[in-house]
């Protein structure tokens, strides 16, 4: 091994602190060489080691009767009956997508797909949660177009439908967009594969693309903040090849249908380093690899480069000894590079050789599990009180409710996302029962009578104003979206996007958000089975809003007992479940009409939430509702407008009458009170629906009727204040909502 002078500069370049370096010396009992230093740097990066978050993540509820695989593996798995599991996870690709939007987003999709099929599951659905700055910014438009075509380019080619997602536009994300990708696959419960290097003497096999010099130190880059120099980091972004990934997917599933495979893991962040040491560490074994046998794109690559390359579409597998031939045959059938590059050992070490000479030797566990853990200081930001203080008396109540509604529908955050999802193949694999554009996507599960509902959600502004309540609401709203499809939530994955954890106010947000997730998951009895943490989301010292993105999976026992959000038929009665309060804090209304992002987020009572959801699921299962739509951004008026114009087969009007009853007009129309769902119900079912709700302790009010060509919402005043009326042609409503994003992009 070549000796190396470890300098302060070298450590800084590798993002290792002095204490961390001391720990490395302790572990090795000597100075590391260049390759070893690089491997520690990658594995002990925030991205791979979760060093700032791990002690807090432990608080999350991860168990339940359906959980087959919890956090710690490539993805989580929950039992959906019929001998099948839903395998899912969500992951971020924020930093690469800012540097190079197309490839950053594309390889994000590639990475999450590999996490799913590595487990033995065939991916059947992708969703994404995106955050951008305002569309009046030319660079944001460039980022949006690049990210959307990157997601489309990869997912479409793979033949995995992108069935849903959500996008929020807010200037806070202008220099740090978020690209979070969710994937779900279906596996047989008895055929789940794990990343373990078991069986001393078994061959370690590399297959997929060749290793190149791209993406070296991607994991370290992803654990860094950004400044003006970010563009110079472009070489750390990988380039995706969805065609090879498609071959890799089919080859993996073919390999897994036999019995030659022992363990398998994809080479994601930190490439060959992470797959080798994690597989060995999980099993308490070691691996010995000959780097000269690793398929390479170019000659002259050093061990450092080979171990830290993040070239895409690569897999590491441990097969049963003597079965190498079968593995090689299947990989060759799919035109993939394949090579036996080593063996499983009992040393507990990752030993790397180059032409027989040892070039690195590190205990696997030290790299994978014994990284630093930090209990970083946390304290509320100085500005928190100012943020939460919102005196309603200083806000004039809405006068022109028509204009206010149209302004909200024109807000890209609320407007139709059709421009985006029409670029995604959302129907391939012929499972998509409910396409993008309803509260949740619904997919049938072939070979069963069941369907799965999928939703992703998070309101970062709520989380800024109150991280605990905001995180609770993210879980509640995701579950509510599923309930509106008649689905019972069975599992959660999260993608926790926060700023720099070395800032006490960011840690304060993080710790409180974890508490919120925990309490909401426990109340709704849904476990978190997988996830990802993305920290250092800050540019030029400005952190993003805390954004704990949630992906949730719901089960529909009988596929034909589901619902969509839009009104179906003139004459149907509109029923509102839940109670409207004066919740104006943190609303989209306050941002769009008053240019303020302030106040306390809406109050969420988890018991009420649970009751409303259970009631909705029951009503849908009993076939008593025609449509169900959750009230979220923009409140009741926006929800009603969406019910009128989001249908796949045309539009329909509605006439609604509301009582002010001591509320402000804007709070009643546009406030974002939680635990509310708009139902439409056939005339003859109304009594039954009201009775079911009453028995469930859920407030249900008959507020109007579907029909006509206008959306009319009449607010009757009280002794305190006058009423107001929204009265708009549905064509106008539709035009404003449907074309807002193309308009903002200059394409209408």
């Amino acid at each position: 091994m070549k000796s190396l002078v470890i300098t302060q500069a070298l450590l800084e370049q590798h993002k290792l602190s002095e204490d961390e370096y001391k720990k490395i010396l302790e572990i090795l009992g000597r100075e590391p060489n260049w390759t070893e230093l690089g491997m520690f740097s990658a594995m002990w990066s925030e991205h791979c080691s979760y060093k700032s978050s791990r002690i807090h993540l432990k608080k999350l509820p991860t168990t339940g009767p359906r959980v087959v695989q919890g956090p710690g593996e490539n993805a989580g798995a929950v039992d959906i009956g019929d001998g099948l599991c839903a395998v899912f996870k969500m992951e971020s690709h924020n930093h690469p997508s800012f540097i190079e939007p197309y490839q950053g987003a594309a390889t994000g999709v590639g990475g999450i797909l590999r996490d799913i099929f590595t487990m033995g599951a065939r991916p059947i659905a992708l969703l994404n949660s995106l955050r951008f700055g305002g569309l009046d910014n030319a660079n944001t438009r460039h980022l949006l177009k690049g990210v959307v075509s990157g997601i489309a380019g990869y997912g479409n080619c793979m033949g995995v439908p992108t069935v849903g997602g959500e996008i929020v536009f807010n200037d806070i994300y202008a220099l740090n967009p978020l690209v979070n990708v969710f994937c779900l696959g279906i596996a047989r419960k008895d055929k789940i594969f794990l990343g373990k290097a078991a069986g001393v003497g078994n061959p370690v096999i590399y297959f997929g693309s060749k290793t190149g010099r791209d993406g070296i130190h991607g994991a370290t880059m992803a654990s860094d903040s950004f400044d003006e120099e970010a563009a110079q980091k472009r070489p750390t972004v990988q380039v995706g090849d969805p065609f090879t990934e498609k071959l890799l997917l089919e080859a993996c599933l073919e390999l897994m249908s036999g019995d030659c495979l022992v363990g398998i893991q994809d080479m994601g962040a930190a490439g060959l380093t992470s797959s080798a040491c994690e597989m060995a560490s999980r099993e308490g074994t070691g691996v010995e690899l000959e780097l000269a046998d690793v398929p390479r794109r170019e000659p002259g690559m050093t061990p450092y480069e080979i171990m830290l390359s993040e070239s895409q579409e690569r897999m590491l597998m441990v097969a049963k000894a003597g079965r190498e031939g079968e593995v090689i045959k299947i990989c060759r059938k799919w035109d993939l590079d394949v090579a036996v590059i080593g063996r499983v050992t009992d040393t507990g070490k990752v030993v790397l050789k180059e032409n027989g000479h040892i070039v690195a030797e590190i205990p696997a566990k030290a790299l994978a599990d014994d990284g630093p853990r930090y209990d970083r200081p946390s304290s509320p930001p100085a500005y928190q009180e100012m943020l939460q203080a919102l005196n309603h008396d200083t806000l004039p109540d809405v006068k022109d409710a028509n204009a206010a509604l149209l302004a909200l529908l024109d807000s890209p955050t609320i407007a139709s996302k059709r421009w985006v999802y029409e670029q995604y193949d959302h129907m391939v694999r012929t499972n998509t029962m409910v396409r993008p554009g309803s509260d949740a996507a619904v997919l049938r599960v072939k070979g069963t009578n069941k369907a799965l509902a999928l939703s992703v959600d998070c309101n970062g502004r709520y989380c800024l104003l109150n991280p605990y309540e905001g995180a609770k609401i993210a879980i509640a709203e995701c579950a509510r979206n599923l309930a509106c499809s008649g689905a019972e939530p069975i599992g959660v994955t999260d993608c926790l996007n926060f700023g720099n954890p070395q800032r006490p106010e960011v840690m304060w947000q993080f710790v409180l958000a974890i508490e919120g997730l925990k309490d909401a998951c426990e109340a709704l009895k849904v476990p978190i089975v997988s996830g990802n943490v993305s920290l250092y989301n800050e540019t030029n010292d400005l952190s993003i809003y805390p954004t704990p993105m949630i992906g949730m999976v719901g089960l529909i026992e009988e596929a034909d007992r589901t619902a969509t959000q839009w009104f179906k038929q003139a004459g149907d009665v509109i029923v509102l479940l839940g109670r409207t309060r004066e919740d104006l804090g943190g609303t989209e209304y306050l941002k769009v009409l008053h240019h303020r992002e302030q106040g306390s987020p809406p109050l969420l009572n988890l018991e009420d939430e649970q009751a409303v959801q259970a009631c909705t699921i029951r009503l849908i299962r009993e076939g008593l509702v025609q449509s169900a739509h959750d009230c979220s951004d923009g409140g009741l008026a926006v929800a009603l407008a969406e019910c009128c114009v989001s249908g796949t087969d045309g539009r329909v009007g509605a006439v609604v009458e509301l009582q002010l009853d001591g509320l402000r007009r804007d709070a009643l129309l546009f406030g974002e009170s939680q635990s509310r769902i708009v139902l439409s119900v056939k005339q003859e079912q109304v009594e039954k629906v009201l009775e079911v709700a009453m028995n469930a302790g859920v407030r249900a009010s008959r507020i109007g009727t579907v029909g006509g060509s206008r959306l009319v919402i009449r607010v009757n005043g009280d002794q305190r204040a006058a009423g107001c009326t929204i009265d708009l042609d549905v064509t106008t409503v539709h035009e404003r909502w449907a074309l807002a994003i193309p308009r903002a992009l200059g394409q209408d």
Partner: protein
Amino acid sequence: MNIGVVVFPGSNCDHDCEYIFKDVLGQSVKMIWHKDTLPAGLDAVVLPGGFSYGDYLRTGAIARFSPVMGGVKEFAREGRLVIGICNGFQILLEAGLLPGVMLRNTSLNFICKDVYVKVENAATRFTNRCESGQVLKIPIAHADGNYYTDPVTLAGVKANAQVIFRYCTADGKVTAEANPNGSLDNIAGIMNADGNVLGMMPHPERSAETVLGNEDGRLIFLSMLSAFGKSEQQSRLVGV
């Protein structure tokens, strides 16, 4: 009916086509790897949608060199049924089994949505269960569906009633607004002169089941069964 579904590297609607013929319509389906030869005894061959070879070059341009394509050409020359859907249509064009080429969509974007197509010729082995002029709602999902050919070829194709589907409005009007991709003459699907090879950009396999909310595409598959003297009834029984 014995159906062969060709699997190119990058095909991704192969399972969907298999599901329709086997699980929904109860026919016998063989999946044929592109490096293999066509097995004997097939009644029809399906070239499914997807991104053969990643479509990194012109769509279908590499797939036409796949070993299986020799057999597919022979099969077509014998007058037996070949249907190419989406990428399959693009491959049929590149292989010279159908006239014309595909350009990028005029929007330059991938487009996935329901469209309406008008059945221009119902007297074919692929459309005999439709009415002439019938409007079908079938989804598209492609970036290169902008059909183009030279004026002489187009005139011949039209004169021969080889244009099978044209993009139209919900009420059957063939207009520029109803054209999703810039396709010449709103062409969505064409047939060869002998009437045994069909290429279409819309995906009938995605709109052939009630659970997916639309059964219009099923008529194409039922027409193929009818061409072999099978009825829906028989196909259901075979499925049991």
